């Protein structure tokens, strides 16, 4: 995987291919309004991979569904701008978004067994998706399905195309879903925890496959995961989300080598990487993520933050805005930059 090379490779088109500005997704419930995504902005160029890291309830999936125009529930409200190749999807009619979905943008889900229909063969489902977006005949679509299954590494694709999803193993189902998502050569691929349900050896195969196809098709990829190891290996840029907001955003090198936000520090301390010295105790983050209904006016991470007392009370009262801490490295934290650097060097890094 070429995390480092991706940024340069994407400069062919200097304008961002996808630009998201102040995206908000809210759900009204009897208990109050849930702010699942709360003002997220980022941009992405062709051929680039953005890793989105966050825990359950951080808004990663709500965000990706909104990008694809799939937040259609009656209680869901989406606002902000989603510019795909200079077309604002948030303002576009549903029919137009539907047209783009599948052809220009596609998604891979975590659970391939529930994303595939159990009553139809895998090949039929891929062909069906292809025919919906192109003028291909049944025969052409079938040939395309077999070709795609071969490209994602299914052995004997012509025969396996006639199998049903339950006859595929977990890794093969994920491959089939990737084949379906990429059958129309989309320019934007959103992969929502594509390897979480898989074994590590199969995960390595699938990540390699996505990277290979991405290099070939020059696709922009949003890789959503809770696994920092996956991000470190596969993404050129990293976005850390917490409680629906962006906490930190920068190149993957920046985020891992000089993490800025106390939440990122906590995540890095919690993981059990094989490159770390072995420890009896891990540096866990105390507490649990907040409810998204009654968020405090301050920083959402404040109740769990070890350093919130060093912000002069700001963390509890004012929402930190995302600012640029150093070139291309953004952080939403009230700690002054020099303090943050000093805390990281003195109190956090030695424990990692």
């Amino acid at each position: 995987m070429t995390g480092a090379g991706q940024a340069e490779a994407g400069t062919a088109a200097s304008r961002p291919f996808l630009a998201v500005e102040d995206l908000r997704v809210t759900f009204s419930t009897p208990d109050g309004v849930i702010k699942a995504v709360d003002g997220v902005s980022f941009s992405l160029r062709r051929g680039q991979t953005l890793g989105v890291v966050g825990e359950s309830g951080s808004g990663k999936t709500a965000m990706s569904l909104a990008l694809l125009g799939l937040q259609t529930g009656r209680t869901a409200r989406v606002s902000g701008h989603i510019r795909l190749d200079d077309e604002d999807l948030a303002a576009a009619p549903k029919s137009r978004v539907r047209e783009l979905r599948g052809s220009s943008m596609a998604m891979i889900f975590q659970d391939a067994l529930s994303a595939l229909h159990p009553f139809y063969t895998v090949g039929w489902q891929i062909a069906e998706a292809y025919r919906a977006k192109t003028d291909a005949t049944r025969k052409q679509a079938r040939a395309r399905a077999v070709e795609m299954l071969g490209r994602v590494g299914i052995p004997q694709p012509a025969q396996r195309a006639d199998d049903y999803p339950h006859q595929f193993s977990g890794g093969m189902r994920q491959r089939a879903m990737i084949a379906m998502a990429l059958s129309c050569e989309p320019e934007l691929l959103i992969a929502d925890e594509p390897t979480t349900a898989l074994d590590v050896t199969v995960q390595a195969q699938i990540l390699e496959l996505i990277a290979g196809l991405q290099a070939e098709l020059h696709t922009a990829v949003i890789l959503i995961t809770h696994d920092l190891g996956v991000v470190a290996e596969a993404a050129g840029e990293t976005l850390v989300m917490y409680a629906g907001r962006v906490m930190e955003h920068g190149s993957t090198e920046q985020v891992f080598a000089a993490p800025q936000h106390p939440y990122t520090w906590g995540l890095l301390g919690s993981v059990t990487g094989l490159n770390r010295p072995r420890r009896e105790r891990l540096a866990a983050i105390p507490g649990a993520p907040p409810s998204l209904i009654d968020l405090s006016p301050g920083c959402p991470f404040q109740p769990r933050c070890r350093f919130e007392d060093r912000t002069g009370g700001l963390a509890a009262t004012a929402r930190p805005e995302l600012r640029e801490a150093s070139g291309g490295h953004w952080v939403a934290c009230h700690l002054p930059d020099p303090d943050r650097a000093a805390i990281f060097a003195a109190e956090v890094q030695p424990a990692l």
Partner: protein
Amino acid sequence: MTSPAVSGPAVGEPAGELLRVHELVKHFPADRGVVLRRAAGRVRAVDGISFTMRRGETLGLVGETGCGKSTTGRMLAGYLPATSGQVTFDGTDLAQARRADGRRLHREIQMIFQDPYSALNPRHTVGTIIGAPFRYQRITPPGGIRRRVQELLEQVGLSPEHYNRHPADFSGGQRQRICVARAIALSPKLVIADEPVSALDVSIQAQIINLLTDLRDQQGMAYLFIAHDLSVVRHTSDRVAVMYLGKIVELADNELLYSRPRHPYTRALLSAVPIPDPRVRKERLQLAGEPPSPLNPPSGCRFRTRCWKAQEICATTEPLLAGQDARHQVACHFPEAP
């Protein structure tokens, strides 16, 4: 390990031995046909594994989906009968002891499951759930069940006021704490933890791992820690056993396994774990394909179909778990040099 009081020297002196598993086998019948069922073979989920555990020791049992690690845990906990093999627990034969007094064994061997959502009855209160082992065993702890349950709640990092709440009021991490409290309620000698943190968020995983470590340091129980990848087990285990298709392929002290893996599969498994540091670029030993079916495992060494070192002997002769160093055993004809 930094707690010498709990974990002694590397190899088990018989006195400190808690569990001895000898050639444990579990085959499930596989049927074909909906109306007329006929036997189509046997799924060799666990196919002859042997290991020992000392008191207070944590043994990591690692392998991928379908390797038989959970089946092993379930057999030891008494949820599944073994097809054959012998298990000695605390000096007595486990199968005999279970027939004689199964209830007593539940006091000594407890289990923690992967999914804390399905492991707790949603209609029961936390107090009922954690108090159940006492009622089932007809034990009244000093001060009464209620007081003991509230102590346990505090011990696992919850509050005594949670006694009358229901599981739905708790997050995944808190539910796993409830499961842990129930498992340790009767001070068992062995806790089988089947992927106890796999369903939890990263920041919560670390909390539960720390909790399990603290409890072991306080109470000295042994853990069989089942996991699907090698990174979690590294921080928790004294020794690690790697399983592939129903067999243990490598069994070694923690440091030895991670610094000098000897079985090709262990090496591949280690190299597949993504490293949370973009500056580290490692050579990956990519395994081709997927594990063969346990219905019809390959002859000889089961890993040979995916192994880059395989030769003729691997197809004809099954390698046995062996090694001159008792702290590091490997089942391979061509292992890496120690």
